[in-house]
């Protein structure tokens, strides 16, 4: 029995060491749109997540941080871009817009991101409504 337990602990240690701990926090107040052609993202690194609520509230990946102030939005995107590029990742704007919000809020975010040099944009969505 003891060799088996040894092996199990070794395997556990191996997977703990090699696992990829990066996770994207999901704002529960945002229901992304349906996009059947959406694909699994190539990398989770370099993502600059902006949540857009139905009423137009903008939140960072940590959805307790509001980004309604344009200066705060620009500072957040700039800092996230610098952090990503410092470790060799390509900064990519990830918009999690609620399916019922209107496009002007989304445009506001894209405009600020483009101004600070982020031109790769990904829109979050579900591939079906189930």
């Amino acid at each position, binding site marked *: 029995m003891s060799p088996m337990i040894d092996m199990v602990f070794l395997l556990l240690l191996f997977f703990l060491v090699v696992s990829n701990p990066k996770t994207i926090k999901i704002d529960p107040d945002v229901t992304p749109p349906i996009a059947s052609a959406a694909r699994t993202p190539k990398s989770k690194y370099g993502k600059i997540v902006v949540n857009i609520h139905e009423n137009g509230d903008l939140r960072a990946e940590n959805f307790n941080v509001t980004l309604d102030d344009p200066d705060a939005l620009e500072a957040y995107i700039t800092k996230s871009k610098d952090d990503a590029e410092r470790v060799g990742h390509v900064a990519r704007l990830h918009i999690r817009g609620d399916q*019922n*919000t209107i496009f002007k809020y989304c445009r506001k975010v894209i405009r600020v991101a483009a101004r600070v040099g982020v031109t790769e944009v990904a829109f979050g969505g579900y591939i079906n409504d189930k």
Partner: protein
Amino acid sequence: MARHKKMQSPDEDEPGLDISSMIDVCFLLLIYFIVTTTIVKKEQDLDMALPSVAPSETPPEISPFFIKLEANGYISIRSDGTPEQLVESDPDSRVLPTLQPLLETYRDAAMASSQEPLVQIYVEAEARQQRVIDVLNSLAATGISKVTFTDLLDEE
């Protein structure tokens, strides 16, 4: 005094390890996690490369395909100097059966001339996000990722 050496079987020499308690705990943990786990819907990405938000000094080699999305969800197109034509008028439909073949034709024409298809989208400010994603979804399904939002420089 006679000494009687008692013969011990090999089984009695090895210390035993009772793992039934550990198995009980493991099953309890397993049941706990099965009961408390909520399956989260997995989100996917629609990737777009925005070439630029500033007006380009060098015009694109290929005439861009122009898509206009109105606030009521209507979608119109214009390509190669043709007049604007309404192609989709059902804002609740997630598929765009008229726009999709037109995009495929445009993509094939661009590929035939060894150029990358370029799409310009004008979206009215009050258009729903889901409708914008419907258009981007059609572009992704067609394999077009070079997209420009033409109104990015406008003030709100």
